[in-house]
């Protein structure tokens, strides 16, 4: 195994060396870094050409100049890497250091949401193969596959930002919209939950009535300009979460698990009042994470107290319930910050932005307003990226689950008399995740590479923008810096995916034989 990894790493360095050499020379012939200055009438142009030539070593031909760059990068091994300077005499390392967090912020949420929703829809549609729901989801997956992201982005800007802001200035849901929203929600849930026709219409009408009534109530309460959950709603939702999680993970017949989860809902209610004093303008991310850890510990202790046998699934269920409920408390806090945020001068009652990664004019002292601003700026790019990448996960998890359900061990599990939920969640779902991990690793690493087009459309300043700028201005050091990071991660991800696959699936052994 070690020999295999060493060999792969060695080859990896060779590949990176080769491709960076080629890329350097390709980029060098793609343009002239001082082309504009040559034709400039500016009296300082001649001096600028000399300065730039000296600074970027343009007097050395590109194939040799590459080795000057390489010498700096190889310094990585003894701790003083030198990625060189950009055209504007800034350090490439600093530029990249600034861009990576932005890229991660932009793409991480979208990837996470796409994975969770994508897998959920994929599984639901595999379990209902050839149903109307399956066909609809297949159609939407293909539709999303076929959309150019910049096209989606323009639509989102128009409908999710400009028109939504217009709606917020006069928050009355028109009757047509109310009808459409309720119908869509009802059709979705009815087709996910039911198969028989009578049950379908029953679910449909219940969900339809519930959705339209709650939208109308929210409208009357002025919820859209002043949203909040409050302790009662949080408690009700938390009970709902407890039932849902228990139902999915161990089944409602497991009374101990249900009781433990419901205890966590009661705990959440107390937690809500205990936490409120901590949620002031001085709150920090560390404190919120600390609260999450505290919640996990309480949940673990509670579940240990409840369970006697088969502790693992019960602990998982309880922790998940507790964390989701605690998350609601944070959501509630953000909701109550909403109207304060809207009335800020920089926001001026048009909260959903179409451009940029934060509002520079916003007062910086309040933690909640500051982070809410970041979240609001994340909204549109996240939706766009999620829509684009969702389809892949839906198709992939659907296909894999269908494949897994045909396996012999599933038949064995059913023959043993296990419940359908155990068969799906423990035997089938877990094996579905194995091939998913491999595309997951690649995607998560792709996060660092940023999203060139999305960043450009929404005016973010991440790795994609750096890359774009480097090509447009023939900034070789910057280009190579970005390339070095993204390519290294991509090749490493490939290796990790291979190793992970063989670790997860004992039938496949990386490196053993051919």
């Amino acid at each position, binding site marked *: 195994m070690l020999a295999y990894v060493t060999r792969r790493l060695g*080859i990896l360095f*060779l*590949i*990176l060396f*080769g*491709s960076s050499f*080629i*890329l350097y020379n*390709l*980029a060098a*012939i*793609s*343009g002239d870094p001082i082309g504009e200055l040559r034709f400039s009438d500016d009296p300082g142009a001649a001096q600028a050409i000399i300065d730039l030539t000296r600074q970027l070593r343009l007097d050395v031909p590109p194939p040799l100049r590459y080795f000057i760059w390489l010498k700096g990068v190889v310094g990585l091994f003894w701790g003083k890497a030198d990625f060189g300077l950009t055209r504007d005499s800034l350090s490439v390392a600093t530029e990249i250091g600034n861009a990576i967090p932005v890229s991660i912020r932009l793409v991480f949420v979208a990837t996470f949401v796409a994975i969770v929703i994508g897998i959920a829809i994929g599984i639901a549609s595999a379990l209902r*193969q*050839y149903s109307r729901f399956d066909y609809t989801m*297949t*159609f939407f997956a*293909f*539709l999303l*596959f*076929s*959309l*150019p*992201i*910049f*096209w989606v982005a*323009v639509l989102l*800007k*128009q409908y999710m930002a*400009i028109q939504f802001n217009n709606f917020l200035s006069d928050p009355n849901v028109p009757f047509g919209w109310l009808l459409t929203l309720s119908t869509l929600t009802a059709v979705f849930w009815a087709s996910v939950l039911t198969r028989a026709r009578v049950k379908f219409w029953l679910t449909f009408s219940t969900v339809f009535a519930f959705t339209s009534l709650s939208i109308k109530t929210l409208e009357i309460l002025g919820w859209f300009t002043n949203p909040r959950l409050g302790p009662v709603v949080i408690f009700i939702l938390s009970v709902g979460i407890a039932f849902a999680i228990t139902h999915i993970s161990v089944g409602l017949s497991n009374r101990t698990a249900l009781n433990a989860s419901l205890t966590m809902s009661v705990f959440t209610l107390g937690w809500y009042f205990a936490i409120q004093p901590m949620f002031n303008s001085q709150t920090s991310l560390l404190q919120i994470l600390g609260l999450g850890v505290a919640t996990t510990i309480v949940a673990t202790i509670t579940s240990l107290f409840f369970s006697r046998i088969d502790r693992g699934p019960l602990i998982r269920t309880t922790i998940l319930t507790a964390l989701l409920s605690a998350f609601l408390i944070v959501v509630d806090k953000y909701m109550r910050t909403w109207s304060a945020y809207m009335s800020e001068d920089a926001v001026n009652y048009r909260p959903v932005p179409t451009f940029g990664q934060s509002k520079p004019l916003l007062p910086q002292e309040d933690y909640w307003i500051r982070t809410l601003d970041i979240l609001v700026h994340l909204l549109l790019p996240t939706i766009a990226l999620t829509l684009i990448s969702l389809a892949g996960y839906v198709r992939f998890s659907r296909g894999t689950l269908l494949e897994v359900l*045909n396996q012999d061990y599933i038949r064995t599990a059913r023959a043993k008399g296990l419940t359908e939920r155990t068969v799906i969640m423990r035997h089938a779902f877990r094996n579905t995740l194995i091939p998913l991990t491999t595309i997951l690793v690649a995607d998560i690493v792709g996060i660092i590479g940023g999203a*060139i*087009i999305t960043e*450009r459309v929404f005016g973010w300043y991440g790795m994609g923008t750096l*890359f*774009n700028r480097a*090509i*447009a201005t023939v900034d070789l050091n910057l280009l190579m810096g970005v*390339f070095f990071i993204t*390519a290294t991660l*991509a*090749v490493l991800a*490939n290796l990790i995916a291979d190793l992970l696959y063989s670790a997860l699936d004992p039938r496949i052994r990386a490196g053993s034989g*051919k």
Partner: protein
Amino acid sequence: MKILKFGKKRQVKEDLDLTGENAIANKETAGLSQSQIVLKRFLRHKAAVFSVGILISIIIFVFSAIDSKIGPISINGWWKHKTDDLPPLLYEGCPDGTVGCPTISMRPKWLGGAGIGFGEHPFGQDDIGRDYFALVMRGAQRSVMVMFIIGFFAATIGIVVGAVAGYFRGWIDAVLMRFTDFIITIPSVIIGAVIGAKFGNLGAAVLAVYLGLFAWTGLSRLVRGEFLSLREREFVDAARVAGASARRIIFKHILPNAVGVIIVSVTLLLSGAILLETALSYLGFGVVSPDVSLGLLISNYQAAFSTRPWLFWYPGFFIIAIALSINFIGDGLRDAFDPRQKRAISKKERLRAMVGIRNKE
């Protein structure tokens, strides 16, 4: 069905279902060749068949609308405007004081519309008055052409590299696969930029060839995996013992067995290619003005969306229609080539099969 005791009714019914389904499946494929089975299964996928129709009509419509040249064949377009005509900007009847709005009408006269027809400028006019219908047609021609060129080059290289690597294994495999890794790390945006800068604007076809030379990596890996498992099968041994050359085994024996996976993957490659071209053109590294492509049109007029949305909708519609139909064709092919593919068996068929079995007993 030997024992039909009370209480065991459900079990018996399930048995019947199972044999019924198998009987239906077997009856369907009896006496047919492999390609006939595939064709039959493909024709059953309604969305895919519909997509084939849509795609062919789009291609014919787009290439006949304005002057185009496919290799030696040149077509004279039936549309009255050319991409470089400069008719005056029309403003009559346009909403909110805009100019150059679309004249296409879908509402018949008896419903109070202007009648179904194209009008003077069906998709409107751009900033300087050029006919937008002609521009969109030219853009769609470019996109379709780029798509097929990328697809052709990527498929050829990918299949050959994957097949050779998978069949010969050993050092040939190692070298080819490392070469593939090497190509993967070079971003296609760079290629576009280099070609644009070094050779000037050589046109969409050259761009497509270069992109195709870098787009084959995924396919080659897939084909290699397929070959690695197929080469261990008995029929390959048989061919080898019979004295077949490596070339013959690769192309005549193994490749036809891998063709299902390959075709599906190539269709995905095609729909990816059309999106790649639009994305590159959008960033300014693909097709550049004065040539036209769908991505370029959207890029140019995205700011006009709130005032003149038609400049944005029509090119987008063509991108989506082409990519969507190709994706559906790919899905249909996947189902058709997969022998394990089960299909939904209707209640009627199931009932008929059950009755048939009962009658036999």
